[in-house]
């Protein structure tokens, strides 16, 4: 199967037109597994706080690959592909646990916590017959290991020797903001998951789409959590592969915001009220006073601070037309009981039942369905201007989406000559 899209198919060199074919091409999706997820990038595997003790492990995915991350007896974090070197069976069958070693149930091949093969039953045969040939070298048949690096409690893995050192890969913008969210030891609060029938890149676009935040998500607009009338912006790293949308709640008034939205034909009627405003209350924790930030760390992770809700989200593609999103919600180890309850209460806003996030799944499924029949045409991305890809201090923009496509195209060999970067 050959890919039905090439560099010349970008209608504009600034990515202000996005061909719908990008969400549907199966061969392109296969190339993404190789060039993006197994490419020169660092994927987030998980958080150190999830596997505190030696032998603790969890399963995750890097692209479609099932990957185990585990803390070995010495306390080092290791990661390997969950596929037996013998016949390809899954070695680890439970999503999380604690183990001394791993044994594949199919033929009982046994691996150390580091993923090294250490036992092959009947290697010397039975009753003097059969067995492995003398040439079989147990050292050559370990599980496929990923490079692992741990930064501020985040476990990153890479299939490629070409990924830069993690500090350089993240760049100053990500080190600043993700670093601030992880500046104190964290504790895991739990997980939320959802499956959306849409291409994984649509979620990347959604996360970088500053424009939709208060239009699709009425809860944001009503309770002033995110509005186009607030002090806000969308910034990127120098290569435009990572991004942050940030927001200062309280920097506009309800009155001026409602007037602006009514003038733009969005809502002129009454706004709803709540019995209990604890969910929409921000206890300031960061010195800048940022109330919301949605951060994208290429290629598979997102961090959010929405008031006092903190989470890391991981995306797992399931074919070109579906992805799973795994939300890991956390607080700080030194939170008191009241703050933990507050964060659990604010988790009502996020995840598949989230009062400000449930809409995204439906929006993306609609796009996936309706673009399928006309893959020869493109969507329009002009909010915030065309041409150069740059940071803007407003949410009335989509420039960060164009930044995603610029970096993606470089990794995928789809960059048109003279394209904006």
């Amino acid at each position: 199967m050959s890919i039905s899209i090439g560099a010349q198919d970008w209608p504009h060199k600034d990515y202000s037109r996005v061909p719908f074919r990008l969400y549907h091409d199966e061969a392109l999706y296969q190339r993404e597994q190789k060039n993006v997820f197994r490419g020169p990038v660092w994927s987030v595997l998980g958080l150190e706080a999830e596997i505190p003790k030696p032998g603790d492990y969890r399963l995750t995915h890097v692209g479609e690959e099932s990957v185990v991350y585990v803390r070995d007896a010495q306390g080092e974090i290791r990661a390997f592909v969950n596929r037996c070197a013998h016949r390809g069976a899954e070695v680890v069958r439970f999503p999380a646990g604690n183990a001394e070693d791993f044994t594949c149930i199919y033929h009982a091949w046994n691996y150390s916590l580091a993923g090294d093969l250490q036992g092959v039953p009947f290697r010397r045969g039975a009753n003097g017959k059969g067995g492995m040939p003398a040439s079989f070298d147990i050292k050559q048949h370990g599980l496929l290991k990923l490079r692992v690096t741990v930064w501020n409690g985040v476990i990153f893995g890479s299939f490629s020797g070409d990924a830069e050192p993690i500090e350089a890969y993240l760049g100053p913008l990500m080190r600043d903001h993700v670093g601030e969210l992880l500046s104190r030891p964290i504790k895991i609060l739990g997980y939320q998951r959802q499956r959306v029938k849409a291409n994984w890149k649509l979620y990347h676009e959604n996360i970088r789409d500053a424009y939709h935040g208060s239009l699709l998500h009425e809860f944001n607009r009503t309770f002033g959590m995110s509005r186009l009338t607030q002090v806000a912006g969308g910034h990127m790293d120098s290569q435009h592969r990572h991004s942050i949308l940030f927001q200062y709640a309280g920097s506009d008034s309800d009155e001026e915001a409602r007037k602006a939205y009514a003038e733009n034909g969005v809502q002129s009627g009454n706004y709803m009220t709540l019995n209990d405003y604890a969910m929409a209350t921000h206890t300031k924790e960061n010195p800048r006073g940022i109330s919301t930030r949605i951060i994208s760390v290429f290629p598979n992770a997102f961090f959010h601070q929405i008031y006092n809700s903190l989470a890391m989200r991981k995306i797992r593609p399931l074919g070109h037309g579906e992805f799973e999103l795994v939300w890991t919600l956390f607080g700080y180890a030194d939170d008191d009981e009241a703050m933990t309850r507050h964060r659990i209460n604010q988790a009502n806003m996020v995840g598949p039942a989230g009062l400000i996030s449930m809409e995204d799944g439906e929006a993306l499924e609609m796009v996936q369905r309706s673009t399928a029949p006309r893959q020869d045409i493109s969507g329009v991305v002009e909010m915030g201007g065309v041409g150069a890809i740059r940071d803007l201090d407003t949410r009335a923009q989509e420039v960060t989406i164009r930044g995603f496509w610029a970096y993606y195209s470089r990794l995928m060999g789809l960059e048109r000559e003279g394209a904006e970067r």
Partner: protein
Amino acid sequence: MNMKDSQGMDTLISRFVLDSAMALDREDFDHWLDCFADDGRYVVMPRENRAQGYDLALMYCDTKPVLQDRISVLRHASKFNPHYDRHIISASLVRGMEAGIATVETNFLVVQTTLTGVSNLFCAGGYEDRIRVQDGKARLVERIVLLDSFSVPNCLAIPL
């Protein structure tokens, strides 16, 4: 309680649980809210979080006013896939009764049907209820929805 009283109680509770679930299928949220006592709470708990000892939920309404807020937002602000729900409810098992509050377990499936008439199994799970029975009327003091299907297809807008 003699055998006859116990059967009467089982019937009353089973009908109440069924009625509370079918109220959601009709989108009669006022009736659904009325199934909760004034001190009632409602939580949708992913089974993986229960298994790992985490309190984090998908819907966490610790008080009735917060539960009412969840319904207000659903009515006025939430956007989601338009569909019909059908709860398929097992018989309810009354595990015990103490100080007028019954501990009750019920299994459920929810089938979702699109407005174009295509049905899919949306989720499986169990209600873990604490039901106060007073003057022949039942009210939920607590409903924990243990959600087996915790990787939610698209989104969860309408309570389970």
